[in-house]
């Protein structure tokens, strides 16, 4: 039953096609609000991840941590999602997906999630307003710092670990996924 549900979600995500990353940040409410209200069939975060070719490890990790309902519910979240290549670069996720590492896994994943929907434009605007730096509180109780590096946005965790916001964002009905080329640290 669960497998069927996951398959159905993946199909739903695939059917949605490439979502619009759009919006103009805080002052670009119109286009995003229309997207939110008009596209009733838009995939949620879990479905969007399931339909992504670059986030298979992350999608598995979310299931393993028991966060699937969180990311498919009505509450909005922004996920800074390491890609499969990022996990590979960090040594793979096998150890994290082990049953006895669930605590670490939850800590790691929640350190990549922030409340609400922060679009790429919202983030850029915040960095601009913060004179080159913006901070976002994570659901693990920490803070992520964002800064520009040329055209790219670099995120730094509390321990100094860094990753770049890289690749396509996944826009979902209840949030957005910004792809990361690295894995940040947990608590």
């Amino acid at each position, binding site marked *: 039953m669960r497998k069927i549900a996951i398959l159905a979600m993946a199909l739903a995500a695939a059917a949605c096609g490439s979502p619009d990353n759009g*919006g103009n*940040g*805080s*002052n*670009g*409410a*119109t286009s*995003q*609000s229309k*997207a*939110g*209200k008009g596209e009733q069939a838009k995939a949620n975060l879990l479905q969007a991840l399931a339909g992504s070719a670059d986030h298979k490890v992350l999608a598995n990790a979310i299931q393993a*941590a*028991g*966060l*699937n*309902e*969180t990311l498919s*519910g*009505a*509450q*909005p*979240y*922004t996920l800074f999602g390491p890609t499969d290549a990022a996990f590979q670069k960090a040594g793979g996720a096998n150890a994290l997906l*082990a*049953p*006895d*590492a*669930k*605590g670490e*896994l*939850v*800590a790691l994943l*929640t350190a990549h*999630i*922030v*409340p*609400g*929907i*922060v679009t790429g434009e*919202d*983030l850029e*605007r*915040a960095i601009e*307003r*913060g004179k080159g730096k*913006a*901070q*976002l*509180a*994570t*659901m*693990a*109780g*920490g*803070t*992520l710092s964002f800064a520009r590096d040329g055209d790219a946005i670099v995120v730094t965790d*509390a321990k100094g670990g860094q990753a770049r916001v890289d690749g396509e964002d996944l826009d979902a009905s*209840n949030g957005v996924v910004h792809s990361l080329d690295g894995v940040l640290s947990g*608590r």
Partner: protein
Amino acid sequence: MRKLILLAGVAALAAAVPASADKGGKGGGHGGGHGAPAAEHGGGKGHGPDMHGGKPDKAERHVSAGHGPSFHAAKPAKIERQALRREFKHEDRALRRLDERRFDDRGFEERRFDEATRLAGAGCPPGLAKKHNGCLPPGQAKKRLALGSHIERSWFDGSSLPRAYRGFYADNDAYSYRYDDNGYIYRVDNRSSLISGIIPLLGGGFNVGQPLPAGYDAYNVPYQYRDLYRDNDDRLYRYGDNAIYGVDPQTGIVESIVALLAGNMNVGQQLPTGYDAYNLPYDYRDDYVDNDDYLYRYADGNIYQVDAKTQIIQAIVDMIA
């Protein structure tokens, strides 16, 4: 799979110790920017940052009395009842016999745990059954320290708490707070060196597939989430450490983390660190746009209006449910 979960749940009945630590409303979580925890297991008398102050409430008193868990009370759906009848005919009888025995000492919890895990062991994979720990794999089988346990003096050498909790669970004259990598923060009485409170954390004491920690018998979901997450025959919802958990009413096993909360926004206070970016859900962006006078930020089901100059949170202007 279902069978395994249900079998593991027998252990949960035992381990999900009675009592309720109603953390109520928002807050109740961990430190730093994570709001104000309202209760710890084991009662306490108002020392430390997380206390209600004054005597423990009824639910907390219930903890120390050692009564049985309340998960028996909920009725399963028809199909579930049939399945449970088949799966647990023997186990339920044994547990009921145990329930009928009322111990006022702390040994009750441990004896009940041992009996339930012995029963559950019958359905475990061979390797895990030998461990008599309720089919828990290695690592998850680590047992937390019990209330009243004596703590070695070496534990007092510096805080071991995860960074996010240090601001809130700071040592004081009466208590020290310690962490043992097992997902629980322990409040230790400085005079006696005994554990006087246990605080389960998300990803530790609260983990999917594990029994709900002791002290969460009562429904305690923050108000703004109650329409979404209300106890029913198939599922209970409990709040702790800034997350809401879906719990199997029969077994007391945490099935899912259904929502994460930031727990760090309060009207009248300064906008906390980490809200530099506009973050409103799409459907609310027409109505609440940052401007020279006000900023709007989302957290925990609420939209907050913030004075753009002073950064003081002025009001909750909308709720999302």
